[in-house]
């Protein structure tokens, strides 16, 4: 029985302009627009990374804490009592899920100096599936399984929308009921709405009268296995796979739809899918797809004339 390093998870900015992977003590961040590929040495080993919507900020979790890397060479590190399991960043807001005595605490920071927000939110025995941030509205959406055996994959699906106020964070909405059966979330959608999707349907929830979150509309969309929203929340992109019995092979696809009317704008075949993949759709519907595979390399594709073509290939440092 053996173990060997798994290629790192690639992360795309929501607009698809920047890709990043963190491996060992190195953050690799590359711009698909200007072609810059700076490597940044981190003061700690990295275990997770998140990019802001435009890619100008990267938040990296590691064994000593979290580090904020700005577009230039700026780096700010905050020590934590335990390695964060998830990070997210949007605008000035940076958040992390930090384990404490078997429970997860949501902690938040502001600005370039990672000024700590007051307090934290106890999310309980949560095995997180995802965490998404809406910086301008000071909101964070967490989702996953909850319960004493959540990390075993056994528990109750749960989602929580946390507002980071001046007095500290608080849970503004718990999606236990409205999002039953959801496979994942896209957030923020236009107006700060939350999208909860199953394999066949996207449900949009928004604050209603009285402050509660209510179902606004639903869209029927086929094959929603993993979805992302564009920066302005007007579109979603999603990936799915179709099995070809004759060749005993999967064929991967990416779909893009407008949320306003549910119209599917394009469906693209995925030419290569490695260990981990990331997807981004910009406000105009342009698709960027990144994947990492063995030996450690990162390949980024962009859609041109209805076909995904490789735009960037990077050999990932061994760490």
């Amino acid at each position, binding site marked *: *029985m*053996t173990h*060997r390093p798994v290629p790192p998870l690639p992360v795309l900015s929501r607009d698809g302009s920047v890709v990043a992977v963190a491996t060992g003590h190195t953050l690799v961040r590359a711009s698909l627009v200007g072609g810059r590929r700076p490597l940044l040495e981190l003061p700690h080993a990295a275990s997770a990374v998140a990019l802001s919507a435009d890619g100008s900020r990267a938040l990296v979790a590691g064994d000593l804490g979290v580090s904020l890397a700005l577009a230039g060479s700026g780096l700010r590190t905050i020590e934590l009592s335990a390695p964060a399991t998830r990070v997210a960043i949007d605008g000035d807001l940076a958040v992390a899920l930090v384990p404490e005595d078997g429970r997860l605490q949501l902690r938040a920071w502001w600005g370039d100096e990672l000024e700590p927000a007051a307090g934290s939110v106890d999310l309980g025995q949560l095995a997180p599936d995802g965490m998404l941030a809406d910086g301008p509205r000071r909101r964070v959406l967490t989702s*996953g399984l909850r319960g004493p055996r959540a990390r*075993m994959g056994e528990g109750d699906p749960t989602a929580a929308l946390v507002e980071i106020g001046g007095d500290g964070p608080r849970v503004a909405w718990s999606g236990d009921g409205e999002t039953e059966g959801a496979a994942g979330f896209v957030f923020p959608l236009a107006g700060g709405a939350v999208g909860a999707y199953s394999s066949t349907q996207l449900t949009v929830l928004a604050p209603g009268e009285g402050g509660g979150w209510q179902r606004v509309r639903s869209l029927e969309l086929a094959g929603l*296995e993993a979805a992302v929203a564009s920066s302005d929340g007007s579109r979603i992109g999603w990936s799915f796979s179709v*099995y070809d019995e004759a060749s005993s092979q999967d064929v991967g696809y990416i779909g893009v739809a407008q949320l306003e009317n549910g119209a599917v704008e394009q469906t693209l075949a995925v030419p290569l899918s490695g260990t981990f993949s990331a997807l981004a759709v910009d406000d105009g519907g342009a698709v960027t797809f990144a994947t990492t595979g063995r030996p450690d390399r990162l390949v980024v594709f962009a859609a041109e004339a209805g076909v995904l073509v490789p735009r960037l290939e990077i050999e990932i440092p*061994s760490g």
Partner: protein
Amino acid sequence: MRDLESAQVRDEAALRSVETPAAAQSADAEAAALLELQRTVGNAALTRRLQVARDLGSPGRRLLSRYHHPPADAHDIAAFDATRHRHDANRAKVQGWLDDGAAQNHDRMLRNSCQWAKAGRSKIYVLTKTHDSTARCAAAHHAGGAAWFSYPAGELSAAAVYYARHAAAADPWDNTNINFWDDPSVDGFNDSTTRVVALMETAVARGSAYFYRVLKHETQHAADLHDTTDLGRYKSEFRAYWLGSGEFNSVSATAQVHHLGWTWNARQWAIFDDMYNDTTYGYVKTAWDAENGEHDRTKRAFQNDVVNFKRPESVNPENSIRVDDFQQAVQAASHADCTADSAAHPNAKVTAVRTALAALDANDRADVKASTDFDAMLTAHLTGTVLTDVRTALAR
């Protein structure tokens, strides 16, 4: 040139130290000198010299002084020494991490895994790449691989053990306690039959968080009591990735995905897909593909078992030494032991079960209680009031 000269001086000094009259030298000092000689000129050369001494019936130390060894490669000696020091540093760092991990409360599996290591439940090895790994691998028909020391001697709880430098090109390589891997990126392995957990220095260099993940991964292999069938090995890796190293924990455990004509949860698929495409786990692809020709999917036994293993069910999911003690005690007992047990005449094996049961903490009890495999083990080995008592205690 200066380096070479100094190395020659050191080699000659080593020889002279062996020549020193034994009357003035303790046995330990002589042994140390021989070890130094071995270190600087190599095992094979030393063996050859001692063989010459024995053949001539003369004291080895006298003949050694006449032996003309080839000039040592100063750079090679320096690299060898640096590697030994790096090995010492790796061991010290890991020992510190184990102490820290056992003392923290944020991560139960980590605390348990460090307790597991510190208790000697598994033999922990920290393996360092030899300074001559490339050449050593080539000579040993492992070209492109990596040579690590020290295994099987040199576990962390014992004194450090090093390796023999290949001093002269004509000498045979001494690969005592060298561990070869054709895949140089492997950074940990486990041998459940000998309860070995080995971690390469590449896992150490990536920092404590990464090391802890590999430790939890490899310890789960030791804790899960897996069988050695293809399916047993697959399940053990699946558990180790999900529960231990957690590389795929960024992938949803709840979202459903469709691949290869089956429905999976996304994390389950990610782990399977990685193993299927990784030659390190070649048996997975072989066993899976062997069934593709069977049109009736219900008859594809391996594929069905893999797809149905959606969560990392384990008899010891958190690497608890207390759960390990308990399962060992249960497996040692029998229905006959339970029947023979009474307050007046306690059965030793049943008493061991009760003792191990009492040592479980609340989390341990919850893990045991949730495991269907553990429940089957209880039923197979315990009966009557003993089984009832155990189940009652586990429910608390």
